């Protein structure tokens, strides 16, 4: 059974402004140096239309990468993250090809693959913290994910059904329901 209180990183590309703060935070946290290639989250840019899609490991329930890894190096951590055991990994990159998002990335130091470990030990992963102002990345328990994502679309439908003339406040699509 899925643990609905396990937190996951949720991405809203519509809010991403392509500042790459998340990449800087990730590389800083995990390697102590700065370059997007040392980051496990990557923004795929389509600058000519100002569109940015952050891509990171989704820690799938049925993780294909775990199934295809010939060395069994991909495993699920206690916090739900799916990560690579670098001692076992041979750097064949099968997990990258098999992943529907192409999310695993190559560690420039070792040539083996790496994915998000949700910053083990931190309350919030650094990439999410770095995105506080834009809110393109959020760290929420699983049971919240569809509620909020779905409400964003429901808001547009709601206009048709709500009492005519009733006023309401501007929607703030945020995961914090304070």
């Amino acid at each position, binding site marked *: 059974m899925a643990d609905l209180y396990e937190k996951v990183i949720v991405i809203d590309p519509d809010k991403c402004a*392509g*500042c790459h703060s998340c990449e800087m935070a990730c590389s800083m946290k995990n390697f102590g140096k*700065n*370059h*997007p290639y040392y980051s496990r989250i990557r923004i795929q840019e389509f600058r*000519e239309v100002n569109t940015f899609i952050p891509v990171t490991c989704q820690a799938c329930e049925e993780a294909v990468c775990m199934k295809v890894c010939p060395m069994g190096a991909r495993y699920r951590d206690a916090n739900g993250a799916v990560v690579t055991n670098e001692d076992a990994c041979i750097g064949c990159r099968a997990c990258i090809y098999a992943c529907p998002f192409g999310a695993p990335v190559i560690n420039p130091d070792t040539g083996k693959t790496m994915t998000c470990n949700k910053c083990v030990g931190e309350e919030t992963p650094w990439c999410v*913290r770095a995105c506080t*102002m834009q809110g393109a990345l959020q760290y929420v328990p699983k049971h919240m994910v569809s509620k909020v994502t779905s409400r964003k679309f429901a808001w547009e439908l709601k206009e048709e059904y709500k009492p005519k003339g009733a006023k309401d406040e501007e929607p703030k699509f945020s995961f914090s329901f304070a």
Partner: protein
Amino acid sequence: MHGWAGKRLRVDLTEGKYEIEELKPEYLRKWIGGRGFNSEVVYHETFAGMDAFDPRNPLCFGTGPLAGTFAPLSGRTTVSAISPMTCSYRGTDVHGHGDTNMGGQFAAYMKYAGFDQIVIKGRAEKPVYLWIDDGKVEIRDASHLWGLKVKETTKRLINELGDPDVKVACIGPAGENLVRFACVVNTFSSAGGRTGMGAVMGSKNLKAIAIRGTKALTIANPDAFAKEAWKLREIIHKSPSAIRRREEGTHDLFDAGNIIGINAHKNVSTGYMPGLEETYGGLQWAAKYLFRRKGCWSCPVCCGRYTYFKEGKYAGFHCGGPEMESVCNLGPRIDTYNVDDVNVMCGMVNDLGMDSISAGAALSLSMEAFEKGLLTKEDTGGIEFKWGDTETSMKVLEMIAYRQGFGDILAEGNIRVAEKLGRGIDKLVPHCRGLEHISVDPRIAMGFSLGYAMSTRGSDHLKNYSCLEFQGCAMSRKALVDEVMGELKDEFWKDFPKELYTLTTKPKLVTWSEKNKCVADLVGCCCQAIGSWGGAGDWRAYTPLFRLATGFDMPDEEIFKAAERVVNIERANWNRVGSGRQDDTHIDRYFDEPVVDGPYKGLKIDRKEWAWAQEEYYRYHGWDNDGFITPEKARELDIPEIIPDIEKGKQLYFEYLKKKGL
């Protein structure tokens, strides 16, 4: 080497050669980065009286030690050279220092490719572009790109080189045609607009620089650096002014600007435009046009805009920006409320590769001169200029970029237009040192006004970012104001907020603000956090990050001193061509004609007060009464090599005064 990449790339386009130079620790300590490296090179590798289009003119791209790191707001590149736009009272062909600062992603990738600075000299025979791949440099043929606009050039280069991580800084048709206010644009729409660096690039037949870098930047003290960077980031996350800047972009300045009447209107003849905030205001703008925000490297705020027209005449049109200055200079400055057209013009200007401020100034000058009968249809080749006529404006902007018809004259910059046509048009050109005013009326905000005149790149607020004089900024940073003003603090608060239009405390404020802004440019970070929205406080926000990233144990005072050194060497660049006090002023219009509209109706600059303020300003800098750097100051700042140059410049200055009988 930590923080810095530690290398400088020198390219000679005439010879087709390049050279990589290691930067020594003493050098780094003295000049720190970005604007510091650039200003040093521009001063030492040129001579007094060099023409901007001389192949020997060094075009420098520089970034600082924090650029491309986890430090917030760290994505700025400074581009410097002798500017084709700026000039001295001694003649429009006497050029001086010019630089411009751009955001985007170029700075970060320059560092990842291993360079803190790129210096380009010489002139290629045929159009070329520079391909820098992780320290490997190639000069490649660009004949297939010549003539293309900015967006198309960037797109083609990225496709050609086959990597979306290639970052491109390029010029548009305006730069190729040597329009004197052409700009350099990186990452599709982040422009380094002012002082015509694009024209310098065009004169070298250099269409673009494409760069890719895979090397990580190391940090001297990663854990402490991360902690400090988080501290600054959290301050910014919580800062109400930063949140507003994110929501509204730089357009948030329209409301405040119009209330105090400092937005340019009708060729900066007045600062107030009725109903401007409702038409151009940040929220209204965002609701109608904002497609998505556009962030510079590692910036949590992302104040950049991206326009998309959902409906109407321009449905489907999309472009990067515009920023407040672009809108203000292509909108209120030419007296139009048609925001649709203004946005399209901003997009157009960016794509053609021109500075939107000077382009707007060219239009507004033509309009005013036409209204006053100083310009006729015969001069303009049949074009009739009318206030607010955006349709003609669009046509003229294209003509400027391609130097067709009357556009060929306007492309020389306002001051040369006036010189060419005569008839007293020069009285209508709002400029300092040949560069047109930005959109702030110099008769009201006196700190800004003094800043324009003293700026080392001609009229511009981004050299003397004295935002503390404005009510909002001063009130939110009271303690800082007290500290900066020192013994003048009672004077400052006495008449607050009316102190805005008095000069008494401004020389001190401007002297401090210059260095404050300079520190941001040196480390490669954005000045807005310590300036207009100011959430991060002042320059000291960056100094701990600088120390932890580089491992250089430089005390705050030494960094501030380095900033002063940079301001001085830029000034020396002017001093040596004989530019001093005579240039540090405004055109007669602002001394003679009062403001005609708005809350500050009737204000003008008092000549006596101005002369006093000039002297005070020089005193705070340790310069002499003619605005020349004194030998003592030069020695104190460890730049004694400027002394003989300045002596020569001073002679030129006095000769000129004598000739004019002053």
